[in-house]
């Protein structure tokens, strides 16, 4: 076998294996989610210029990601600037869980966000918390991407 033939063969095998790996089960990261956490901007609204109103969570999780913390820091800054504003943190869960547990999960997520805001000096009497469990999805789809958009804590102006 001469070199060109070897190269040709290995090239074919490589292409074939790459094609096959492409057919592998969809890995969790797409360009809109990282791990399982939504990183896109499709359902995101803004409290003020550059200040996103929500943070997202992984399935069954209530911990804040780095991106979430950054969003919340910006929210804290905005709240310090506008000291008269009070907010409600709405916690939500996706539909892939039992109803009552999801209510508790939503409450925990909202409190995760609240606790972080408190560490940035926002007074707790400016913040109230409500959980909607899986009752108020923003995305009615039945896909993992839809579900990731629904696992959120949203900061809403109360006054």
């Amino acid at each position: 076998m001469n070199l060109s033939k070897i190269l040709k063969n290995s090239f074919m095998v490589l292409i074939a294996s790459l094609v096959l790996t492409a057919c592998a089960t969809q890995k969790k990261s797409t360009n809109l989610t990282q791990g399982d956490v939504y990183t896109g901007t499709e359902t995101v609204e803004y409290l003020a210029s550059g200040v996103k109103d929500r943070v997202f969570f992984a399935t069954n999780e209530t911990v804040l990601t780095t991106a979430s913390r950054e969003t919340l820091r910006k929210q804290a800054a905005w709240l310090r600037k506008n000291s008269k504003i009070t907010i409600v943190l709405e916690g939500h869960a996706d539909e892939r869980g039992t109803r009552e547990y999801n209510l508790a999960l939503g409450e925990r997520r909202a409190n995760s966000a609240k606790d972080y805001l408190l560490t940035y000096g926002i007074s707790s009497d400016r913040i109230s918390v409500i959980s909607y469990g899986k009752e108020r999805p923003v995305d009615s789809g039945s896909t993992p991407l839809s579900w990731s958009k629904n696992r959120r804590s949203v900061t809403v102006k109360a006054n």
Partner: protein
Amino acid sequence: MNRNIVISFGFHTLLVLITAMSLPFLSKKPIDLPPIVSVELIQITDKTNIPFAPKAKKIIEKVKEKEKEKKLVSEQAPPKIVKKEKPDAVPLPDEKIEKVKKIKEEKQNPEKIETEVKQVSEFEKKDLFDPNSIAALIDKSKIESAESNKKLDKITQDQDKSIDLSALSLSEEDALKAQIFGCWSIPLGLPYNENLLVRIKLQLKPDGTIIRSEILDHARMNKPGQGFYKVLAESALRAVKLCQPLRVPSTGYERWKELQLNFDAREMLEG
């Protein structure tokens, strides 16, 4: 040359590995295809073919049933319990087919089947085609195959003779049982953990019709806290009445003109 082979081999294994990892459906279990059904049915004979005592047969049945149960009950899929049947059962539901499959592997006499198939059609004329009766008969063939399992050790030829005189032969017994299994509608509400045995004594005519039926544990019928016993006893009486004329042996009337049927719902309800 060797190097080429090594590289080629490496890429091939890589390819195979990737294929195996990314095509998960390959690792699924193969689908159980129901086999073409040919059921081994037993002739009713006067003399016993198998020198088993009825009790040994029961023990063997129980052991085999338990093995099957372990196989069929799984965590994920809705369990198809071996003994229970859907109300609109199609002849020979899956569970029975599995049993047949097992037996087929052990069967060795193809010639027998032909003559017995003829017998089957006679039975069918008598009562409705009922998978339960076939199940019972399959149980019987289970025992035939169990023969080879050397459980004969404890049984002797003497027992053979005594069975002839004071009991029905196993095949006669099984035919009667199979018939009654089909007639007995077990009330589902009975408590699992109570004594669910009701004994009925029958006086029969030579043609299998009932002259008299008597519940042996009559006192239990009205005992407080044993209300379910009445329901159970009534279902047994209904079964017996429904099944008339009973499938009795054609000879030896003196032997079986008085018969005691022990209805026990425990096995069916515990499942």
